[in-house]
């Protein structure tokens, strides 16, 4: 025996071990395949020996070769032999080889069943361990069936090391042999509460994987998992549990509500990105309404995922996303383009009437900064998309929009000229009020066309000239200086523009001409009119020579017309009326769906052929007649390709001959440009190319920024007017200076558009059928915004303060300052510190009063607030600084807005059961009931919903959308008020304030 071992080890000394093999392979880089084949031969020899150590060594080498891609399936039986060794060293190698090389179709697996069973029940836990590990890789349905019981027993093994492995491998067994699940499940469930955390996490793993395949059966385990979720600190386990709940919630909606709290806690507390990601994923999938906003904030670390999540949330909770506008705008500065594009997508869904200008302004800044045309083009299209979405719903000032479009034309090298052009046309046609302005802008564009067309070949921007020319022509009555524009349109340089734009130029020059004639006819001096005609006659021949058919045709037509007009003018005949009749009538926009709405007349079959289509063979013979075009027909027929070079040349000659004789053929080559250049001497004139890479501020083009300011002012004015109508609360101050205090939340309804889009007047065919169902895309995620956008800003309160100078001196340099509380903050201009005062924008002569407005941001409105403040000012005569302290009292009432409510809606609100109730009794009120109601309405911004005898229901709403309902009853001198509100604190405070109002009288 001893001899044998010695012999074995001596043998081994001459054998290659794994290290030698690896080294050998590395040393034989050139002839690796040859080297390995000799190695395999050696291995085959080694496998034939009786010594198990030699065999194991061989098997180990084989495993390595298998990884390198060599087929070792022939050694499967030897692997089993090594697996069966009683020594752990070899068994381990055997199982490793098996787990790497065996698959379901390996026949020898059948032979292993008993060996594995023996190993599973081995007293050595590591024997069992390697058997389980190996089994997990090559378990077959047969093995699963035969060994299920053994593994199940191991789940209750004394060693956690074995229990944990057994639990995990059960999952593989269930997959291969599903019948085992039922008997094994109770034990698996027990393992969820195993004292060893490793076993516990293994059980969670297995059940979660099972539940993902069939969640229904695992609902009953929810409470157990819930407990684990709140108690476990192991991120790996938590992720699995959260995944499991993600699968369960769709089946049991109540779970969602319960999960909100632990999920929110996890999101706020965990530092593990993977767990955070899992939570967010589940939150989004489950569409839990809670804390979504905060989720977004946190995950902004993982920006891309965050933005992706937000776009999902946007569909369901637009409000919570809108509050993160600044964050999203920041993402536009990100280095990563995909993040910027995501952010752009989000912005599209976030705009409202209020923030459109601001967002677009930011985007315009980015357009200027952007590098790379693709991204810039993307920005451009997004700006236009954002502005034009749902019929320009969010645009309140179209002058602003036109100037944005004009600014966009200054982008170099954009491909989206046609997009800008179509927007210009659309707006000019549909918004009547804007036309004068648009025409003025377009005239400037035409005047400065040379700036746009610097290098036309790759510049798509010249498309806007198409729109500009058309707008100037069509609405020429608005032009201030039509002659100048006409001249701009007939410049020789126009001939370098693409054909379709030239055509529009020519046609609209004619329209302009008509308008000019009309204007000038009234004058006594007819020379001006004749000069204009002469200008047309001088310039149009340039276009008659054009290579473009359309341009040529229109130009010749109009040239003849003008010549005729000139003749008439010379005879002093009045022609203006008739010329303008040529272009009379207004073009109305037609709804895109108009055609669809025309019913098909009876007996008309649109699918039937009017004429039978010509057969294939006929069309084959038909040759396109190339009269106007020299180009070869695009689809050259096969036989053409067979023609050899000589034949082609001969034909070309013949064709040229033919063309030369053809009086109608216009040669393409001598274009106007070339004629011009061929004139002797001209080419020697140096032409200075002015290259202006810096975008020019074209004089006369207003910058869109101006509009942002103008719009602000306009809104403010509107707000002020509104406020005048409202009742104000007056607070007398010690010094006699009165301060008025009112809340004026700016909500979306307050913003009335400066121009109305002319959508309704889109022309419809007379017998169009009315239908409304076709305009909205139900899948548009951003539509939801329309409903909820209104309430987005319930946190701003505008306080107007009236300053009255009761002294005899002149007051100046007034500064208004308030000590911010946590809840209420004075809005200060950007860049100023939190304690800086705001300058009051006026001075006060003696006896004069003036009003100033200050904006406060308020977070919670459920409690009344008192803010301390100071007003500093300089008395002019004494030049001393003086200070006046005051208190600003924000009552809860001041957050209420008088909102009318119908009685049925009111009843529904009360029935809903979401409201908390409270009541108050007022004693000794001595006034008629209607006075009492009027007082509540007046002081506390309520409206009467319904009044029956001595009982009335009243309603009001807070700026943050809380409903407040009152039921006021009176008997004698006692008034009882039963109130309901979704915010009990707010309600309590409002009732207190009402009580106070009546105690004072």
């Amino acid at each position: 025996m001893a001899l044998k071992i010695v012999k074995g080890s001596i043998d081994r000394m001459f054998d290659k071990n794994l290290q030698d093999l690896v080294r050998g392979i590395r040393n034989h880089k050139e002839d690796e395949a040859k080297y390995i084949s000799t190695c395999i031969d050696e291995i085959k020899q080694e496998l034939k020996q009786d010594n198990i150590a030699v065999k194991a060594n061989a098997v180990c080498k084989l495993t390595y070769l298998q990884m390198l891609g060599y087929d070792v399936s022939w050694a499967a039986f030897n692997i089993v032999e090594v697996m069966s060794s009683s020594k752990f060293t070899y068994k381990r190698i055997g199982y490793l080889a098996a787990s790497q090389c065996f698959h379901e179709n390996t026949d020898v697996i059948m032979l292993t069943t008993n060996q594995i069973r023996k190993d599973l029940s081995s007293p050595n836990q590591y024997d069992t361990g390697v058997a389980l590990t190996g089994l997990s890789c090559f378990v077959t349905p047969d093995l699963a069936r035969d060994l299920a019981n053994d593994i199940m027993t191991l789940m209750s093994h004394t060693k956690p090391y074995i229990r944990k492995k057994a639990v995990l491998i059960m999952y593989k067994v269930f997959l291969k042999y599903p019948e085992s699940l039922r008997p094994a499940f109770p034990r698996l469930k027990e393992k969820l509460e195993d004292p060893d955390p490793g076993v516990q996490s293994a059980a969670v793993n297995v059940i979660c994987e099972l539940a993902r395949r069939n969640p229904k059966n695992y609902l009953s385990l929810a409470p157990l998992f819930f407990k684990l979720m709140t108690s476990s600190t192991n991120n790996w386990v938590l992720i699995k549990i959260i995944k499991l709940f993600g699968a369960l919630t769709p089946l049991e909606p109540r779970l969602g509500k319960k999960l909100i709290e632990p999920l929110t806690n996890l999101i706020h507390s965990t530092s593990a990105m993977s767990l955070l990601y899992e939570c967010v994923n589940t939150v989004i999938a489950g569409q839990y309404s809670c804390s979504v906003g905060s989720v977004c904030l946190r995950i902004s670390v993982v920006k891309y995922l965050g933005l992706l999540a937000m776009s999902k949330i946007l569909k369901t909770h637009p409000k919570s996303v809108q509050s993160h506008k600044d964050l999203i705008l920041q993402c536009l500065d990100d280095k990563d383009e995909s993040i910027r594009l995501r952010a752009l997508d989000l912005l599209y869904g976030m705009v409202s009437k209020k923030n459109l200008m601001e967002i677009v302004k930011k985007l315009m800044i980015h357009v200027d900064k952007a590098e790379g045309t693709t991204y810039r083009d993307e920005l451009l299209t997004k700006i236009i998309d954002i502005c034009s979405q749902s019929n320009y719903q969010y645009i309140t000032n179209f002058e602003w929009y036109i100037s944005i479009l004009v600014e966009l034309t200054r982008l170099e090298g954009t491909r989206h000229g046609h997009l800008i052009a179509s927007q210009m046309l659309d707006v000019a046609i549909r918004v009547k009020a804007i036309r004068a302005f648009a025409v003025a802008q377009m005239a400037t564009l035409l005047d400065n066309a040379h700036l746009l067309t610097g290098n036309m070949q790759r510049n798509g921007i010249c498309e806007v000239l198409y729109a500009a020319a058309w707008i100037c022509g069509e609405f020429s009555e608005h032009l201030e200086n039509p002659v100048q524009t006409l001249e701009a349109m007939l410049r020789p340089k126009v001939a370098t523009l693409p054909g379709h734009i030239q055509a529009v130029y020519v046609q609209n020059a004619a329209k302009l001409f008509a308008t000019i004639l009309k204007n000038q006819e009234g004058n006594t001096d007819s020379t001006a009119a004749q000069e204009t005609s002469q200008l047309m006659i001088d310039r149009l021949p340039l276009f008659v020579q054009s290579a473009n058919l359309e341009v040529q045709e229109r130009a010749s037509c109009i040239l003849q017309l003008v010549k005729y007009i000139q003749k008439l003018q010379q005879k002093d005949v009045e022609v203006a009326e008739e010329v303008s009749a040529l272009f009379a009538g207004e073009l109305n926009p037609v709804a895109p769906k108009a055609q669809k709405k025309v019913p098909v007349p009876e007996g008309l079959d649109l699918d039937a052929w009017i004429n039978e289509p010509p057969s294939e063979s006929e069309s084959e013979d038909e040759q396109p007649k190339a009269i106007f075009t020299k180009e070869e027909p695009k689809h050259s027929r096969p036989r053409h390709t067979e023609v050899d070079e000589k034949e082609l040349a001969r034909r070309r000659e013949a064709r040229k001959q033919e063309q030369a004789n053809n009086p109608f053929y216009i040669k393409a080559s001598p274009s106007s440009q070339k004629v011009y250049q061929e004139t002797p001497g001209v080419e020697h004139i140096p032409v200075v190319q002015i290259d202006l890479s810096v975008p020019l501020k074209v004089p006369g083009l207003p910058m869109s920024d101006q509009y942002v300011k103008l719009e602000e002012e306009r809104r403010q004015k509107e707000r002020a007017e509104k406020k005048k109508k409202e009742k104000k609360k007056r607070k007398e101050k010690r010094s006699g200076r009165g301060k008025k205090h009112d809340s004026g939340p700016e909500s979306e309804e307050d913003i009335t558009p400066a121009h109305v889009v002319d959508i309704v007047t889109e022309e419809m065919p007379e017998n169009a059928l009315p239908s409304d169902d076709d305009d909205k895309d139900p899948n548009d995620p951003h539509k939801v915004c329309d409903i909820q956008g209104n309430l987005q800003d319930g946190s701003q309160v505008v306080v107007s303060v009236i300053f009255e100078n009761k002294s005899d001196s002149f007051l100046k340099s007034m500064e208004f300052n308030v000590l911010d509380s946590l809840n209420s903050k004075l809005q200060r201009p950007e860049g100023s510190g939190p304690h800086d005062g705001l300058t009051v924008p006026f001075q006060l002569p003696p006896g004069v009063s003036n009003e100033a407005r200050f904006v406060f941001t308020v977070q919670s409105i459920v409690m009344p607030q008192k803010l301390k403040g100071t007003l500093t000012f300089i008395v002019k005569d004494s030049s001393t600084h003086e200070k006046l302290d005051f208190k600003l009292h924000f009552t809860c009432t001041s957050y209420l807005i008088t909102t009318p409510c119908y009685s049925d809606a009111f009843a529904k609100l009360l029935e809903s059961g979401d409201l908390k109730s409270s009541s108050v009794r007022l004693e000794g009120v001595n006034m008629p009931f209607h006075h009492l109601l009027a007082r509540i309405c007046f002081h506390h911004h309520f409206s009467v919903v319904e009044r029956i005898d001595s009982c009335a229901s009243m309603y009001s709403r807070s700026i943050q959308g809380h409903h407040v309902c009152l039921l006021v009853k009176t008997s004698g001198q006692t008034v009882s008020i039963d109130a309901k509100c979704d915010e009990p604190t707010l309600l309590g405070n409002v009732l207190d304030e009402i009580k106070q109002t009546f105690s004072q009288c």
Partner: protein
Amino acid sequence: MQFMLLFSRQGKLRLQKWYVPLSDKEKKKITRELVQTVLARKPKMCSFLEWRDLKIVYKRYASLYFCCAIEDQDNELITLEIIHRYVELLDKYFGSVCELDIIFNFEKAYFILDEFLLGGEAQETSKKNVLKAIEQADLLQEVRYTPNHSHVWQI
């Protein structure tokens, strides 16, 4: 997890572990395809990619790529953590692991992986427990692993 592959920057496979039964031919095809795809990616690119109906999570440690395939609903970030944990385990076991350690002691690398993952699921989240189990098992072996850094010749 469906499988885990380790390969070098040159595209040489260093370790493979399959948790789904596949034929050798398929395994080879997948390996070849994935190695190519992953190696073609630039260093700044994302560690996750979608491939067929799976998600691939990979990470490069020195000259070695660790690459895992997971299913659609699985968590990519935790997979990245698993990879990292495995590297930590190798590091602890071999003592500042290098590619050569894995080449020459590839069976050890497998044993560690098997103690850490089973059937594609994390079986032991404690590093200490994994290493303890390996040490215990090594004790049972006759030939103990002695860190062999005598291979000084170049790669």
